[in-house]
């Protein structure tokens, strides 16, 4: 416990992380404390970097697909959709409409499971383990449906470049509808258990407040931004897949209570309402889904795809509204090589990380776990490292980092 002396006051520093029960993945915080009150926070990522991007630049995109899926275990299909959209954009590969609808259905099912999982984690951080067990128990239903549709429980391996690999058959549709009805009935109970529980209200109201201005300036994305009232949703702002044909609008907490506070309670509201929205979207998609091709599913088509990837060149981006916010993939191909020369991933947690600082201002120690959890951080997705020369201790200044990033941008431009 080191003492940090400010001009007049003495602050205590406590470290949280890289391993700590409130962190599900390694990330280091060091808090300056005045009694139980947080004065300032420093965030140090870099404990969980796996070099996925470099791996992806050593193999062909069909192999990278399911590597991209494993960047994140929760929003795996989001990475898959963003990656395949990037490759499709780069190489000009068309996607049949039915495949786009199937992608939407899987993405929204994933949003349901991710938000319910987050609700359980948040309850656990508050010490409310009953809700953790309850939410994770009801989450099984959507996992079962995903397993039924794709054959896998977690990393579904369903989306491929230029389509999807499995169709939703007539027999499966009623089962999906049944699961949606289950969640519709359940939602009322979840809203009651989370939003009307006195202890949860005590712990989350006016905790971790991110103002509208901060959310805009710090470029927060996804539910974190929407809970502060920023109407930001890639599905609406830049429609893709089958979203233009579906009714979708950004969810903000004023749909549930009159004012927007931007606190943790608002973030729970947004996520629970998004579960409801996702149910509606899947129902619409099931209704409007056209018949037809689903894309590169047969052997000939797959072999053909490999040839196309080798012949064509180009660069492309893929964006997707993952459960945690905007996900962005960039990829660049050269002619006569099936291996991309560049692949870059920017995931929602990377954008949301900066919003920790205003949220921690004036919080208590007891608020730390729930504030860490409230942006639904996925450290494995966002981790960054700087490789240093062996044996040389150096601290990078902001200017040096800026120069580094310019250098990288120039390299990306080619």
């Amino acid at each position, binding site marked *: 416990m080191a003492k940090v002396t400010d001009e007049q006051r003495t602050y205590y520093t406590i470290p949280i992380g890289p391993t700590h*029960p409130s962190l599900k993945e390694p990330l280091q915080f060091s808090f300056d404390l005045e009694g139980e009150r947080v004065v300032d926070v420093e965030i140090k990522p870099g404990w969980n970097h796996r070099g996925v991007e470099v791996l992806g630049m050593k193999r062909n995109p069909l192999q990278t697909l399911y590597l991209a899926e494993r960047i994140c275990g929760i929003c795996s299909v989001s990475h898959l959709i963003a990656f395949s959209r990037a490759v499709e954009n780069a190489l000009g590969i068309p996607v049949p409409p039915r495949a786009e609808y199937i992608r939407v259905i899987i993405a929204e099912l994933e949003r349901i499971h991710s938000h319910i999982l987050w609700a359980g984690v948040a309850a656990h951080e508050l010490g409310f383990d009953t809700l953790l067990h309850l939410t994770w128990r009801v989450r099984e239903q959507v996992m079962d449906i995903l397993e039924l549709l794709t054959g896998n429980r977690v990393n579904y391996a369903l989306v491929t470049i230029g389509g999807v690999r499995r169709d939703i058959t007539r027999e499966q549709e009623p089962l999906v509808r049944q699961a949606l009805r289950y969640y519709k009935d359940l939602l009322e109970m979840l809203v009651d258990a989370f939003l009307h*529980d006195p202890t949860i209200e005590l712990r989350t109201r006016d905790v971790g407040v991110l103002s509208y201005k901060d959310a805009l300036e710090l470029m927060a994305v996804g539910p974190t931004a929407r809970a502060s009232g920023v109407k930001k949703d890639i599905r609406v702002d830049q429609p893709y897949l089958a979203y233009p044909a579906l009714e979708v609008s950004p969810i903000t907490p004023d749909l549930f209570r009159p004012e927007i506070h931007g606190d943790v309670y608002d973030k729970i509201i947004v996520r629970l309402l998004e579960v409801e929205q996702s149910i509606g979207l899947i129902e619409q998609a099931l209704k409007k889904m056209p018949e037809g091709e689903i894309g590169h599913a047969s052997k000939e088509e797959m072999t053909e795809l490999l040839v196309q990837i080798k012949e064509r060149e180009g660069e492309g981006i893929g964006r997707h509204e993952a459960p945690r916010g905007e996900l962005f993939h960039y990829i660049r191909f050269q002619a006569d090589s099936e291996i991309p020369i560049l692949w870059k991933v920017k995931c929602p947690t990377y954008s949301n990380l900066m919003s920790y600082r205003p949220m921690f201002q004036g919080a208590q120690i007891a608020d730390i776990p729930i504030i860490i959890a409230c942006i639904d951080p996925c450290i494995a997705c966002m981790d960054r490292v700087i490789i240093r020369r062996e044996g040389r201790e150096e601290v990078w200044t902001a200017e040096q980092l800026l120069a580094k990033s310019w250098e990288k941008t120039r390299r990306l431009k080619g």
Partner: protein
Amino acid sequence: MELFWGSVVILFGGVILGLIYQGVDRKLAARMQARIGPPLVQPFRDIKKLLVKENIVPENAIPWIYNGAPFLALAAVVTVLFYLPLGDQRPLFSGYGDLILVLYLLALPAVALAIGGFASGSPYAVIGAQREIVMMMSYELPLAAAIVALAWRLDRALPGGIAAFSLKEIAANPIWAYLGPLGFIGAILLVGVLLLVMPAELSKIPFDIAEAETELAGGVTVEYSGRNLALLRLADAVKTVVMGALILALFFPYRLGGILGLAGPAGGAVDTIFFLIKLFLVILIAVTIIRVAAARLKVSQVAYSFWVPLTGVALAGLVLIVLDGLFFM
């Protein structure tokens, strides 16, 4: 000699009873959360395993305080057990101390835990220890108010000359028989207060802020391991029995054997079983159900809720009982 054997029986009996109730509590909590839960003997296995594990003393700890605190906690909590009426038994040390002593002894484990936390030299433990002290200051007032009210009323109701704070007398004369309507309401309020003080005293959710797994990674106990942790766990288990038995002795000291008119060994057996059932019900309500149905509160919220609303309720109960004593004699 009788005292010696009695204390040996109570020491081991209390520990075993505490661990069994802990197993029951864990099992029932698991069932409420739709889990299977650990087998009933799991607390015994945990203790056994902790006892064979290495006892690590951190580098910046103060060893003698750090190692002494768990012993102090367990010793204090077992000593309370000697003063409480259990089953059909009169309190073992009935002639040597009264409720006031029990009140002070109950504060001792928390103090020991806090001292151990401060001595373990970890920032988490220090924060946990600070919180433990705040908690103690919060729940002492409602607890004391409840006990004083009861003793005063009993002193007034019974013919002069008895020791009002003697647990033996309180247990022998159930309070409800002497209360008028106002006092009855007051006593109900006090039971409610004590049922909320109990989880705070035992550091259970929503008042487990001194240990707070997700915030402080175990708080005061974060550095403890091996034998020391086993002792702390035992103290915790015995404390559950102590708090339950205290509430029973104050408010529900009825003996089924006495009511049925049984005497001798048969009456003793019936009394003991009845006592165990009563204890189970108190623990179910005050520990298991509350901890399953609530989120952890913040230290400021705990302090507020004990100092303002709960103390208010306790004082209201006290005033009602005093009024009852003055006007409904």
